[in-house]
């Protein structure tokens, strides 16, 4: 995982070959992440969710080459075909574009908008939270009270307000969503770090003369990254839904780019004509976000190993 871990295990293997009086191998432990992986593989729900996520990611990557029809090409004669149509397997939208192709290509932007803000917020939020939690005192007070200001607003409102202020567009949506998630992740990171900073092994590391940065990187990070990561994965679904919401309101992705939230918006007028087709982007959002949630849930229980 972290650099010192791998360095030591490499050194361990190297020494094995060098020592002539070592007939038996060093007992290597599986380690924390090994145990987590082992338990995660045995969790059917988490594995099923993981498979769904992998399939969607694969579709997202391959979509430009595997869509059955051109997702941008419409036909005024073949608008709002029902699900199960011979040509349009999942029907066609209000401009006569193939739904399945648009859903496949739309997974790119939807996943991107779901994962990117959380990823950026994971890095920034962990940094702020670990710093605040480890240093404590005034640094903590200033950082965390600033963070608290963001909690005064509901996250949907905050995302819409920021997006509205910055203007429509993918980049601005990502910026505003990141701003929504940084405080939440920082809060979790701070509380986990505060929980371990009084442990004796942190004191022992201080006594060895290590700098605060080294202690945070080597001793703290490995112990807090798990819970923060789990929390962050649970935010991916929220991010996807918020991003869809922004697109729905016309603040995110612009037409004709396919994105699930935007598709939901443009198809809403067709809800009385062809409700099944109109609901399809929503089904896709639901499926992927619940998969992320179930997976993060499985990850969390897999990490609950008695220490």
């Amino acid at each position, binding site marked *: 995982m972290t650099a010192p871990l791998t360095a030591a295990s490499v050194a*361990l293997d190297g020494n094995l070959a060098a020592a002539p009086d070592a007939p038996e191998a*060093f*007992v290597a432990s599986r*380690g924390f992440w090994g145990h987590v992986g082992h338990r995660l593989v045995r969790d059917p729900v988490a594995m099923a969710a993981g498979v769904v996520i992998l399939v969607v990611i694969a579709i997202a990557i391959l979509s430009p080459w595997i869509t059955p029809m051109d997702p941008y090409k419409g036909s005024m004669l073949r608008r709002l075909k029902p699900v199960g149509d011979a040509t349009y397997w999942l029907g066609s939208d209000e401009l006569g574009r193939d739904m399945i192709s648009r859903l496949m290509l739309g997974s790119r932007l939807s996943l991107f908008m779901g994962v990117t803000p959380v990823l950026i917020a994971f890095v920034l939020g962990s940094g702020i939270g670990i710093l605040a939690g480890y240093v404590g005192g005034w640094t903590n007070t200033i950082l965390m009270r600033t963070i608290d200001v963001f909690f005064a607003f509901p996250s949907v409102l905050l995302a819409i307000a920021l997006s509205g202020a910055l203007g429509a567009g993918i980049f601005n949506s990502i910026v505003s969503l990141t701003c929504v998630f940084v405080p939440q992740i920082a809060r979790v990171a701070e509380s986990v770090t505060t929980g371990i900073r009084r442990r*004796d092994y942190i004191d*022992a*590391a201080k006594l060895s*003369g290590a700098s605060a940065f080294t202690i945070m990187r080597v001793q703290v990070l490995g*112990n807090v990254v798990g819970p923060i990561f789990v929390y962050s994965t649970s935010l991916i679904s929220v991010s996807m839904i918020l991003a869809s919401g922004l697109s729905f309101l016309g603040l995110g992705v612009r037409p004709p780019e396919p994105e699930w939230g935007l598709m939901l918006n443009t198809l809403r007028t067709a809800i009385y004509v062809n409700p099944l087709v109109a609901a399809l982007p929503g089904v896709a959002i639901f499926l992927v976000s619940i998969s992320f949630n179930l997976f993060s849930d499985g990850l969390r229980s897999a990490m609950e190993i008695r*220490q």
Partner: protein
Amino acid sequence: MSVIPPGPDPFAADRGGPAQPLLSVSGLVKHFPVRKGTGPKKVVRAVDGVNFDVLKGETLGIVGESGCGKSTTAKLIMGLIERDTGGMLFDGQAIGERAMPWRSYRRQAQMVFQDSYASLNPRMTVEQSIAFGPKVNGVPGREAVERARALLARVGLEPKRFAGRYPHEISGGQRQRVNIARALALEPRLVLLDEAVSALDKSVEAQVLNLLLDLKAEFGLTYIFISHDLNVVRFISDRVMVMYLGRVAEIGPSDSVLAAPAHPYTQALLASMPSLDPDNRTQKALLAGDPPNPIDPPGGCRFHPRCALAEGVCGQVEPPLEPVRAGNRVACLARQPGSGHSAAPAEVLAA
């Protein structure tokens, strides 16, 4: 077999010669503020003017009941919490000043904590935990790992079996051996053992104590051994310091302090030890009640509300720590000539 790879001669760093105390603590004070309502500011007087020396090569045992300031003293000595006032000299040099900055002091003074599990990072293998200290002090990674393995072997843990293990995979006694190895990895001169064997089974405790004695002889270490177990302190210590409510009650050679205690508190502590002889069981508690609140310690001698010898003067005069007989120093007016206490010895003893 169990040779620690190239390390400096432990006596090479000796500056002041054998007669100079390795650690000299004077007037050490730590008050913790307590916030209670809007009243006047109050403080917990955890350590309130403590003086003692740790001689080179000795084991100084520190005893006292819970809350007497033992662990706070330990943390102050290691610099884990900042002292309010007081001086600390390490081999004649003031710690924290230019000649002996904290960083170079810490390379020479290490600590073993009571909780063997909490003091090891659960995400690091035993070997990584031991090698961490040398690594951050500039020892190349490979060499640090080798040193960690040699130390593991030295504390009685087969490196092949234990180096790659995580703390939760080994027993409490084994973990404490790892902690000892980690403390020794920086080749310290002073090792502070804060209740280091208190959480272990009696049989394991004995093994670890013997290991500590062996290591001390091999590496020329000096120990500060904090414990509430008087039997253990008697076994391992050369000198004993008894603390009560943030102050030193009595200090001296362990034979003299533990066999013929002069301070009423030391006497009560010793008398409260369970006897192994069934005909000589302790029947009644010699020490009634709890220690007073360290936020509002009693005036004069802090022990006087619980003391059998207490007189009026004890509530007014704070007893200084004065020698009563060769090497023994006691903070008790009843033992000090001219103190005004009726039981005070008449003639002045040769200090």
